[in-house]
């Protein structure tokens, strides 16, 4: 018998996830279906291998970084709540008129949080700065063996030079935001969910 996807997820859990992430009821059920289909071990959590089994993700140059984003510090398993919390960053930005509740903290998919998510893809050691080395690491992942170390180094230097305003030879989050202020983050860091 197949797993009864929608019945394993209790209504209270769905409500909690809805509040935390902003996904709709049907989106949460569909994503739970997806979560269980990826969970080959059928133990309610995903490990890194479960993600790597997706061919399109395995061939993505930044695949490993993206997978890492799901796993909190030092852990090897992610449950459905954690899965949804990370996915929520890619929800399209809500209409600002809708959410007038001042008690609700900034939603996970705000422009700021999306940029922070992208920043953390670079900033591996989480010191709130993108150093030259960290930038080089990401560059190397994206270009593979096709560019020499020297050339890559100069690309990294140039990028830091353009972005760096306080002269510390690294890119802070504020500087990151400044560089990307004209980019349509709303569209480029959002996935269009149906219904």
């Amino acid at each position, binding site marked *: 018998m197949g*797993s009864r996807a929608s019945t394993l997820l209790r209504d209270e859990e769905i409500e909690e996830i809805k509040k935390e992430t902003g996904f709709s009821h049907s989106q949460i059920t569909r*994503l739970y279906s997806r979560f269980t289909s990826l969970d080959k071990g059928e133990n309610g959590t995903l490990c890194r291998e479960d993600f*790597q089994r*997706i*061919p*399109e993700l395995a061939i*993505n140059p930044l695949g490993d970084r993206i997978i890492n984003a799901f796993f909190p510090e030092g852990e090897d398993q992610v449950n459905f709540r954690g899965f949804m919390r990370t996915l929520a960053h*890619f929800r399209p930005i809500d209409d600002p008129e809708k959410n007038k509740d001042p008690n609700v903290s900034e939603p996970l998919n705000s422009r700021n949080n999306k940029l922070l998510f992208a920043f953390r893809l670079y900033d591996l050691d989480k010191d709130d700065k993108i150093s030259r080395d960290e930038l080089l690491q990401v560059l190397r992942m994206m270009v593979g063996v096709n560019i020499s170390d020297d050339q890559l180094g100069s690309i990294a230097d140039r*990028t830091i030079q353009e972005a760096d305003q306080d002269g510390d030879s690294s890119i802070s989050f504020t500087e990151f935001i400044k560089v*990307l202020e004209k980019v349509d983050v709303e569209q480029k860091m959002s996935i269009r969910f149906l219904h």
Partner: protein
Amino acid sequence: MEDFGNIVCSAFIVWLTLVVGLIVLPAMFGISLGITEVYMKVLVKTLEWATLRIQRGSKEQQKPTTLVSNGIILRDDGSMEKEITDLRKGRSKPQINGEFELSDIFYFSKKGFESIVEDEVTHRFTSEELVSWNLLTRSNNNFQYISLRISIIWVLGVCIRYCILLPLRVTLATIGLSWLVIGASLVGLLPNSRVKNWLSELVHLMCYRICARGLSATICYHNKENRPMKGGICVANHTSPIDIVILANDGCYAMVGQVHGGLLGIIQRAIVKACPHVWFERSEMKDRSLVTKRLRNHVADKTKLPILIFPEGTCVNNTSVMMFKKGSFEIGGTIYPVAIKYDPRFGDAFWNSAKYNMVSYLIRMMTSWAIVCDVWYLPSMIRQEEESAVQFANRVKAAIARQGGLVDLSWDGGLKRAKVKDTYKEEQQKSYSKMIVGDDSS
């Protein structure tokens, strides 16, 4: 006690006679008594009624209906170059071709997340989700309790399927296969002649017809004028071992495959006596040139039956056609493409070999409602002069996918078990590198 034993015996004999008389004999001669048609009519009516009830039931309960036929997300289909250039439009600086931007990472992360939410490949290796429940226990994934009447029908269905249909079908399959082994061995005793070939074809056809009745198979053949001819190669999309029964009901093919032990081995050894099939030892399969040579020899002999090959190399779930291995397309000869599409409402034909072994799969097949499928014979194709084997394979695959209404994928069916090759990632890295160093590649 003895009387009881006698009664059981005579009941069994009566039942067996009925089965043979009403099903086996007509099947052998290709005649239909209309029993299957009546059964199918009743079945369709019941399923339609059940669908309406379920739809009404879920409206009343106000549970949001999850649409499974659509995807979860809508993807942009732009190329890497287009998407990244779009991203860079926001820059205030004039765009110099060949530069890195911090925003480039957005492209890869978005693609990555899209593939986590929904990808084209992983769900091809599990059974297709149904739009509406078809009253089979096994497809009850997202459907909750609706009403008492539906549950009663379901219980009735379970009883009918397991207590009436299953024994009937097992009997038919046994009769069919035994007849194949015995008949083929008998025919094999004859010296090679036209009569032998004719008899061998007859024996094969009879057996497969009985087996098809054993699965309550309703097959609709389209475009019979394109049927594979002798000395050709028939290629089809692969969903399950039953594909062979489906195709062989309408024509005779030479099978290709590995030598097995056990029951399958007995069948293999028997039928090769009647007409030439191509069986390989496990060790021989590794030698590509040997395989190609033997197949080429077979195809060159115009008196031999057309070979049946499934170029995907593995079973996929009948919603898509995956990469065709080029080996079959290097042999030469005329290719006769065939598209097979099963109707998922009546039974799930897909063999998920990771989850079920052959025996449990066959039991699942025999306890489904029925197997309903369409078979389209496509016009024959020959490899063109300038075409490589891979291009030819893709051309044939596209034609089959188009006809069967299946998604044409270039992903390898072997991804069911194996990891994806690194070459694809390297291709992406190469394209991206070109973007950031500009046109002069160093």
